[in-house]
């Protein structure tokens, strides 16, 4: 068995797995947005049928979303299993082979968590299921990056430059904040309480909403929803306010990171380009968050919000990986001095990132 770093088709296959994972996250988002997570009461069977033989004629209402989610999840599980075996057989980097194994166990755990959510009636499992989905997406994208031609060929990677502007910690911190934000979002969604604050940018017409028991009772009495949602609580209102504040913090952090990467590394550096796209994603994500409220949590908009969240986390994670490869930690004194002087762009740097 010949193992090598040059596996073009493996890289493309890893990209396919990552794309399928994003599609699966979108379907999972639709399941929660439509309140359809419990539409199929049994697992691993579907209304007593084998998952793959459940009649199409019965794919109606909430069943459609939940059953499609299960089918695509099975497909992603299969893709990941093949990816792990392919990596194990053909990839020369030992750590990358084990990353494939990790992906396989992660997708298996994810499937079991999804099933347990249904049979154990635990919303908490749904939150963990949603958070693990995001991490799994980052993992598959990382494998796609590591197996890409760009990763092994980029000349800039062979001569790392000092991280004078503190980009590495900035990318890392912003990415961790995005992940925390996604967990917050998943917690809000899996409370199944609808919109705890129905207006934006104000909150019940104020900068900070009233949270006393009488006010919360009034909020619940005033809202009329079609679906069977839980009543909102003061905790859920605080949760959404925290989500809003964190969104602003992330927007500012990512804007600073994009500006800094552009200024320090030049507009043609991959980190500058990708962080510019990252900022675009975050701006889009803020708009989708607002639109989720303005459309009274329309399922399509809320799901797009989930998808953009996943893309934002993934982009941040890729930037961290690339930055930790391209940039060396700068000595503290030099970093202070260097902050005052922009660097010229490196000649011959790779600018097309295939991630």
């Amino acid at each position, binding site marked *: 068995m010949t193992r090598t770093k040059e596996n073009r088709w493996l890289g493309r296959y890893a990209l396919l797995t990552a794309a399928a994972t994003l599609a699966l996250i979108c379907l999972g988002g639709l399941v929660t947005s*439509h*309140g*359809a*997570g*419990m*539409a*199929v*009461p*049994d697992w691993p069977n579907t*209304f007593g049928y084998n998952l793959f033989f459940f009649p199409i004629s*019965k794919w*109606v*209402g*909430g*069943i*459609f979303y*939940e059953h499609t989610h299960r089918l695509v999840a099975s497909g992603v599980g299969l893709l990941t299993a093949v990816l792990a075996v392919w990596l194990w057989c053909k990839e020369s980097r030992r750590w990358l082979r084990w990353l494939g194994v990790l992906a396989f166990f992660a997708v298996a755990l994810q499937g079991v968590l999804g099933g347990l959510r249904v049979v154990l*009636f635990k919303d908490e499992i749904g939150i963990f299921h949603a958070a693990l989905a995001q991490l799994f997406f980052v993992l598959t994208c990382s494998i796609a990056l590591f197996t890409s031609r760009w990763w092994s060929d980029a000349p800039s990677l062979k001569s790392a430059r000092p991280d004078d502007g503190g980009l590495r910690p900035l990318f890392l911190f912003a990415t961790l904040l995005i992940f925390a934000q996604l967990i917050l979002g998943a917690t809000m969604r899996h409370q199944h309480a609808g919109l705890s604050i129905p207006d934006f940018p104000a909150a019940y017409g104020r900068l900070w909403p009233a949270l006393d028991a*009488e006010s919360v*009772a*009034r909020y*619940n*009495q*005033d*809202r*009329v*929803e*079609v*679906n*069977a949602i839980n*009543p909102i*609580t003061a905790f859920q209102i605080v949760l959404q306010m925290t989500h809003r504040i964190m969104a602003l913090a992330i927007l500012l952090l990512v804007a600073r990171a994009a500006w800094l990467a552009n200024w320090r590394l030049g507009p043609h550096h991959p980190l500058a380009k990708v962080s510019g796209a990252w900022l675009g994603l975050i701006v889009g994500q803020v708009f989708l968050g607002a639109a989720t409220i303005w459309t009274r949590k329309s399922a399509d908009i809320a799901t797009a919000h989930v998808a953009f969240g996943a893309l934002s986390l993934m982009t941040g994670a890729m930037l961290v990986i690339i930055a930790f490869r391209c940039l060396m930690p700068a000595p503290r004194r030099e970093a202070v001095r260097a902050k005052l002087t922009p660097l010229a762009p490196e000649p011959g740097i790779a600018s097309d990132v295939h991630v």
Partner: protein
Amino acid sequence: MKPHLLTALVLVGSASLASAADITGKVSLKGTPPAEITIDMASFSDKTCAAAHSQPVTTRHYVVSKDGGLANVLVYIKSGLEGKKFPTPAEGPVLDQVGCLYEPYVMGVMVNQKFKIKNSDATLHNVHATPKINTEFNFAQPTKEQVNERGFDKAEVPVRFMCNVHPWMFAYVGVFDHPYFAVTDKDGNFKISGAPNGKYTIAAYHPKTHRDGPGVSKEINVNGDTKVDFTVELK
């Protein structure tokens, strides 16, 4: 059965009947409720639901009569019966699914009383009970006229029922450890029959207004037929 035991039972029964009273009254809503929303069944993938209705169907959060009577309120003796045991009726009410709606929207059962859950629709429903004290369950009713029996072993007000296939479908079931409860009709009227004389706290619970709250309650002294009215106030 031995004759003297039968005589004793008859005497006890007569005594309890002699002291039985009806508690009647009306629940009114004070304040203007938000408008109900029309349920868009027509654009839903399962066409069975829309086909079952000739008129638009709306949500049922606040069903209020012209004179302010509030329907779908659970009225029940909340305290004053502690330590007493009551037989569980053999027959239970039916929670039906008709035209992709739960009927009735609100009902009551006794602890351990088996009640029927029926699917009158030619489509699949999943019956998902989401109690906080009792055990949650979720099962499928794929065929028309299918009936399943269920019960709850602890008192709880209310237990929400939902169908995740048709997300607008939900209903509330109050579970009581005595038989002295009622649900207000479309005019807000209720009648609790056969309550023994005594001093009670009687509560009115409206699922929308009092969700996760205690409802409103009053102290009453039942000595023969008693009338008590409630006002549910929007904040």
